[in-house]
């Protein structure tokens, strides 16, 4: 094994790339869960986003249109979850699973014609001056625009949830839907909008995988990223900045195991490849064992809202 093959600067800068798709999906799910809805269909929405973004980018030659299309596709797909759970009061766990199963099938179906194609490249931003700083420059200032978009999104979601009226209403609906209804807030409408936002974010995350991170389309390419995003929301205690930290830790593990593979560590590749999943489980256990009150889930999470009058 040759550890000197691992370049720390490259490692840290690729960590940000590895974390971005999961962070996008997790941020979306965070908003959904804050509104009191548990959507387990993140994996399904991500992979549909991945293929739709890929297909549109290949057809039009524009990654921007690809990302836009992926967000739209994720939002539309999330309606398949929103309708049964919000209007027809179906079980959220089961409906989320259905969304994932359907999304995996649908994406494979659409993807049939896109195997082996190369998507148009997304240009990296080269932030003037800052990008040329040694070490810090390559780590922080030479990424594609989506990395910065995602960071901005984290800040925006944090600020909106914490300071704005809209954020207050979302939190209120997620804490106690009966009380919110009694005060005249449209619980179902707010939740459907949150679900669509979550779908759009998951779609973006998927497209990031197929357009930038990998970048190629393969069937089932999300490989559990959606589920890890769900775990990271729990890890982050439903707070945006902690979700960001969780995603970066996960990204770090992914990149490190990949680097160790390349460095030729004396361990079968499969055991390294499973490490991100194992570490996610370990982190989940640590978090749930030391649950503090402030970091708890929204009180109405996963509960069905039915206005009797």
């Amino acid at each position: 094994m040759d550890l000197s093959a691992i370049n720390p600067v490259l490692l840290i800068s690729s960590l940000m790339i590895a974390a971005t798709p999961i962070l996008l999906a997790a941020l979306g799910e965070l908003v959904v869960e804050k509104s009191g809805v548990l959507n387990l269909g993140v994996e399904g929405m991500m992979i549909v986003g991945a293929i739709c973004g890929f297909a549109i980018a290949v057809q039009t030659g524009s990654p921007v249109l690809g990302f836009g299309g992926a967000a739209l596709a994720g939002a539309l797909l999330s309606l398949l979850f929103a309708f049964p759970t919000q209007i027809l009061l179906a079980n959220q766990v089961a409906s989320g699973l259905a969304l994932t199963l359907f999304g995996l099938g649908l994406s494979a179906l659409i993807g049939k014609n896109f195997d082996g194609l190369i998507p148009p490249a997304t240009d990296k931003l080269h932030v003037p001056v800052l990008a040329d700083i040694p070490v810090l420059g390559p780590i922080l200032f030479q990424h594609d625009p989506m990395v910065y978009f995602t960071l901005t999104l984290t800040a925006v979601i944090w600020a909106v949830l914490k300071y704005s009226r809209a954020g207050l209403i979302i939190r209120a609906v997620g804490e106690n839907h009966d009380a919110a209804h009694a005060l005249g807030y449209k619980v179902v409408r707010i939740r459907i909008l949150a679900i669509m936002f979550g779908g759009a974010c998951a779609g973006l995350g998927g497209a990031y995988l197929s357009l930038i991170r990998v970048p190629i389309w393969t069937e089932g390419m999300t490989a559990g990223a959606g589920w890890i995003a769900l775990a990271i929301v729990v890890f982050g205690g439903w707070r945006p900045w902690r979700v960001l930290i969780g995603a970066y830790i996960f990204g770090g593990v992914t990149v490190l195991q990949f680097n160790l593979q390349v460095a030729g560590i004396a361990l079968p590749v499969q055991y390294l490849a499973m490490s991100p999943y194992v570490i996610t489980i370990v982190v989940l256990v640590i978090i749930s064992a030391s649950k503090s009150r402030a970091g708890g889930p929204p009180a109405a999470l996963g509960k069905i809202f039915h206005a009797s009058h």
Partner: protein
Amino acid sequence: MFRLEKRPVPSKAWIIATPVLAVIATMIAGGIMFALLGKDPVEAIRIIFWDPLFSEQFASYSRPQLLVKAGPLILIAIGLSFGFRAGIWNIGAEGQYIIGALFGAGVGLAFYPSQSIFIFPLMIIAGAFGGWIWAMIPAILRTRFNTNEILVSLLLVYVAEHIMAAMSLGLMRNPEGHGFPGSRNFQQYETAFNAELIAGSGMHWGVVAAFIAVIFAYITMSRHILGYQITLAGQAPRAAKFSGVSPNRLIVFCLGISGLLAGLAGLFEVAGPAGQITTSFNQGYGFTAIIVAFLGRLNPVGILLAGLLMALTYIGGDLAQLMMGLPAPAIQAFQGMLLFFLLAMDVLSNFRIRLKKQGAA
């Protein structure tokens, strides 16, 4: 707009009618999907649902396949239905299925080429144990640390897949396989092979186990106090605690039984129809079984029927792929659709739908 009004008692008629309606709605929506793919929808539906059983050309081959595919689906779904009723969500049956197959196959391969009659029973025990122990991970984490069992059981599927890949490339690789990945094939190891019991029927020990599981589940759910406690815990967790049900014991039981049955399904599959551990041994039965469990309304008899129907869509899907070039993922999407329609229509058994005057709050 319409308004939902909760029924005082769930409608028995709708409980039976909703799965049927969901299947019909899926056929219609699926037909539209097939048409969009440029295939004749009527023909596609016929090939999927009719030809495997009744076409003179294919039925002799595909009819036995029905039991071969339905066996593992039913076995896993029966196990899942216990937990789903209790509100304990094991969605990692796929992983338990893989580990069960690895344990069972491992025992069989370890004794190769012994001809002892104890090998196959030993493999069955090992398979069940493998699935059980894999399910115990989320169970223990949930009861000890309150870790979400949905996420843990699911993430363990990916871990199991990687272990399986490592095994078929490493420890379990066939020493006479000229370096190809994959274990020895049990077809060439008769003592350990899960053969067809009645020629041309598709019936093997796994199918027998599935039928036994259906009967066992039926009696447990309708007559045994455990069945009552499971239902109670799912419907009203606080009432269950008040009644004296220990939530932790229920979690261990429900995850344990579903892991055990999934492990069995994996063992019977690897020792029979699949024949060997390969990198692509698992075919998603563990996930499809979730659909089967819901389609069967978590009722053992319902699951039996739903398992057969779902098996039909697999076989019919293969046939449609062969006959009219219908892409394989179309069937996966088709199955996902079915679960959606089912969940959406569930509302009919618990609620009355009333039209609402415009503007009324």
